[in-house]
């Protein structure tokens, strides 16, 4: 069974036709990276899959039809969403942010605190006063609580120091052993380290889909990502 299958996704926002028929397949297990230049519709694709923006087309998540479902029902199909810019609730404490995300009877705090021990120490601290890296931990921790089988993770390395990015890669690697991850990421080094598959988006459509080794194709990366293909 595929973790996610989207067919002919279209999204128009404020008069702009952003997604123009995206076909996307995410196999179960491992990390599929969704790549593309700025503004090609990567974040919009994730938001469309979550039901956060109006869309047309067909989406199947973990074998279930997700068309027409409200966002909270999409989540309950088994999807965790880590948004771009973290979107932690600044006025709530770390503990309250985590409590809000609890959707299962036995949330897995052990896993969250094992991966991010700092969150345990700071559980009474307001999320708005955390550093960027700590907020990212919280944002990822919120979805790990529920052991969702599929995670949509949007630019987790954005704005983080290189050392933190390296730790983040380790963490995502460990998470990928239990959950399928669809990862939007601009940091190609991180993608190369984690991804098993890549999907390349350009001008609102998927222009390439294949194994992560395709990133060695210099012509592909130059044409669609605007970078040289060398490692």
């Amino acid at each position: 069974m595929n973790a996610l299958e989207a067919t002919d996704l279209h999204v128009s926002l404020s008069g702009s036709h952003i997604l123009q028929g995206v076909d996307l397949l995410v196999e179960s297990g491992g990390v599929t990276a969704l790549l593309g230049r700025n503004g090609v519709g990567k974040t919009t694709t994730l938001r469309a899959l979550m039901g956060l923006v109006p869309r047309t087309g067909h989406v199947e998540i973990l074998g279930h039809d997700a068309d027409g479902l409200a966002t909270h029902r999409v989540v309950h199909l088994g999807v965790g969403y880590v948004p771009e810019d973290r979107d932690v609730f600044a006025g709530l404490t770390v503990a309250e942010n985590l409590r809000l995300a609890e959707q299962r009877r036995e949330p897995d705090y052990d896993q969250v605190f094992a991966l991010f021990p700092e969150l345990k120490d700071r559980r009474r601290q307001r999320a708005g006063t955390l550093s960027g890296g700590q907020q990212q931990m919280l944002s990822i921790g919120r979805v790990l609580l529920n052991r969702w089988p599929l995670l949509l993770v949007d630019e987790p390395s954005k704005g983080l120091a290189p050392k933190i990015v390296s730790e983040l890669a380790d963490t995502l690697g460990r998470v990928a052993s239990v959950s399928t991850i669809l990862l939007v990421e601009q940091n190609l080094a991180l993608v190369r380290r984690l991804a098993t598959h890549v999907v390349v988006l350009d001008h609102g459509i998927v222009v390439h889909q294949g194994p992560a080794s395709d990133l060695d194709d210099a012509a592909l990366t130059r044409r669609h990502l605007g970078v040289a293909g060398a490692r």
Partner: protein
Amino acid sequence: MSVFLSLLLAGLALGAVYFLAASGLSLIYGLMDVLNFAHGLFMTLGAYAAWDLASHLPASWGGWLFVVELATATGAGALVALLTEIALIRPLYGRPISQILVTIGLDLAVVGLLLGGFGSNPQSLPTSLWLLEASRLGSVVVPHADVVALIVGLAVLLGLEWFLRRTRYGIIVRAGVENRDMVRALGVDVSRAFTLVFVIGGAMAGLAGLLYAMVFAGDLVSPTQGDSLLIFAFIVVVIGGLGSIRGSAVAAILVGLAQDFTNYYFGSHSGFAEIGNLSVVLILILVLEWRPQGLFGRVR
């Protein structure tokens, strides 16, 4: 000194009523982006429901009359709010202009029905005798009604704080005020929180309508009372910051005190009895200049 203390108590009591009127409005807008112009109607209907029931009760109910009226106004406000949310607001989420129009329309229609059914003359609210009395603390006269308004306002503030900080729905409401979409993306059905907040807001509005009639309108209930109170409720919400209960509490006290003191000290000299309203508008202008998001509001 005794005049000052009496004015202080009356200003605080007025602030308590404004807080009850404003806090629901603030939460509803903060969480749901709904500018509820029918909130004044919830206040009026709360007071009318209490009047209608109390009028049919024998005078022997005495001290219990007030308790019954309090429960009736709260329940009526909550019920009307629930029906309004389900029937009129829920089908129009994401259409703010339509929501504004439909709540204005509901207010006009029901106030019109009240005027047609009961006339424009205010109705006299039967009330417990002890509420009309006052005690003396030294040289200070302490009207019981003022003390009751203060106690009810404080109890509601503490109850709301407990709800928002200690319960899961409270956390959902606080998070939803910050970022509704993200709450949904964590798997939470926000629409239940919407309904709950509307009902809580309606209950507090009903309570505000009753207390306003008892404490500041000479135990009289009139069809347009809620709409007059709604204007001050909106001002309190803007001064305090949208979605902030603490902001509403501080702003309500500020507005209540300013209005009361200005009316007393400047009203008689200027010959302009409602000069207190001017002081409220002045505070509003100053706050908007200094902190457009309100005293406790976040920049959105």
